[in-house]
């Protein structure tokens, strides 16, 4: 038996949406290097829709795969939908993760939440 599902390996070996968005208007970063996982999400939001999303991840195979899958799941989606994305949905989309790797999918959910928070903060700052 392999360590990871085929889906996880596919997203790990061929990660989608890797990179940086220079003019992102929502950036979220979670995790820390001490624990061995850092995820950074760059979102370009327009008219309450995630027009584009890219990620950078320092972490294990499942962290990279979770980031990749999460970006696919939110790209082109309205914020109302993006806000409801859970780590469980990411894990399921990956056909499961080993028990001790579930936290990687949690990081993906948190990275998106953190980016949305950044978006709200920027908006509020702009309105002031």
């Amino acid at each position: 038996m392999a360590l990871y599902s085929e889906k996880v390996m596919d997203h790990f070996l061929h990660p989608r949406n890797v990179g940086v968005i220079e003019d992102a208007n929502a950036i979220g970063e979670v995790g820390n290097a001490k624990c061995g996982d850092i995820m950074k999400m760059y979102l370009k939001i327009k008219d309450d829709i995630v027009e584009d999303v890219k990620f950078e991840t320092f972490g294990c195979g499942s962290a990279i795969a979770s980031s990749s899958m999460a970006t696919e799941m939110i790209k082109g989606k309205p914020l109302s939908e993006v806000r409801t994305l859970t780590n469980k949905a990411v894990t399921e989309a990956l056909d499961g993760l080993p028990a001790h790797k579930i936290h990687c999918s949690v990081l993906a959910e948190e990275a998106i939440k953190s980016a949305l928070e950044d978006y709200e903060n920027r908006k509020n700052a702009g309105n002031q």
Partner: protein
Amino acid sequence: MSIYADHAATTAMSEAAIEAMTRCMREYYGNPSSLYRIGQQAKEVLEQAREDIASVIHAESREIYFTSGGSEADNQAIRSAALAGKKKGKNHIISTAFEHHAVLHTLEQLKTEGFEVTLLDVHENGVIRPEEVEAALRPETCLVTVMYANNEIGTIQPIREIGAVCRAHQVLFHTDAVQAVGPLSIDVQAENIDYLSASSHKFHGPKGVGFLYARKGVPLLPLINGGAQEKGKRAGTENLPGIVGMAAALKETVAERDAEAVRLTGLRDRLIAGLKEIPHSALNGDAEKRLPGNVSFCFEGIEGESLLLLLDEKGISASSGSACTSGSLDPSHVLLAIGRVHDVAHGSLRLTLGRENTPEDVEYIISAVKDVVSYLRGFSPVWRDLQSGKTPFIL
């Protein structure tokens, strides 16, 4: 392309060992404890294996006890010396911070039973200092246990000097020599070793078998009670095919040891030189006092598990001390013990070369590791911050 570069984890079975085991299973199925001929023939085979193994480490055959492997041997040696010490009111044990868990967890258990344990500093180069062993000795010290060579970073410890210190102070000395038996020449007499643990599958023998050398006269208690096998120190019918395979594998390894050590050291040093070309990388452990086949590196800005998976995709089997490969949140205790901070220890890679590896393998590994490290750094937020100067480089 398939390159096995994880010989510290386990080794491929030697053909000589497979043949010896197959023959043993066919021809010597008798129980060595039975008095009739086929039992006694099996007994002879068992004792021949014991003699062959004893001679490799300059021991007497009656000082060799067969076990299920290195972990059992470690447990038995440490527990025996500790309990004998306790009876004399001695409850202090000296060890090191980067022992194998078979030793560290046994010591943890003994702490709950009233023992005090001093773990010596292993320093940045991963080599302990005999004078620090001497300084840590107390009147109530009953045991010093120091590994012969470290399983992750390959550093070879000054066993002869530590043995001399222990002998001078009449303290029992155990060494976990799981990584050393086979590649290194060991003389338990000259090195004043009282107990030594070894594992067969590290030197091309079968898994599930090993041995404990216990100098005659030292305390030895059984972990497994039952029949009178192994002079009452290890009950249970002997794993004869395993023992015979272990002896055959060891004889073969020792016969080619000197030439193999020279060859592997050459490959190792070429691999180290090649990987050093990767910016912000560092070799773990002393460059010279290390096992012939061991190469251990840390690469800043990347994580070890993803590195291993990508190397596996390129046909290279290696290992890492990252948290994600250990199943815990902390990276390897060995890397932390030599002073690597968490951030860097997560990006570790261990390549251990052995019998089948060639110079071509080494060149392929160098180029594959370079590619993979640079690919992973390409989308690592940690690397971005290091490069932009937001956080300072450690390596």
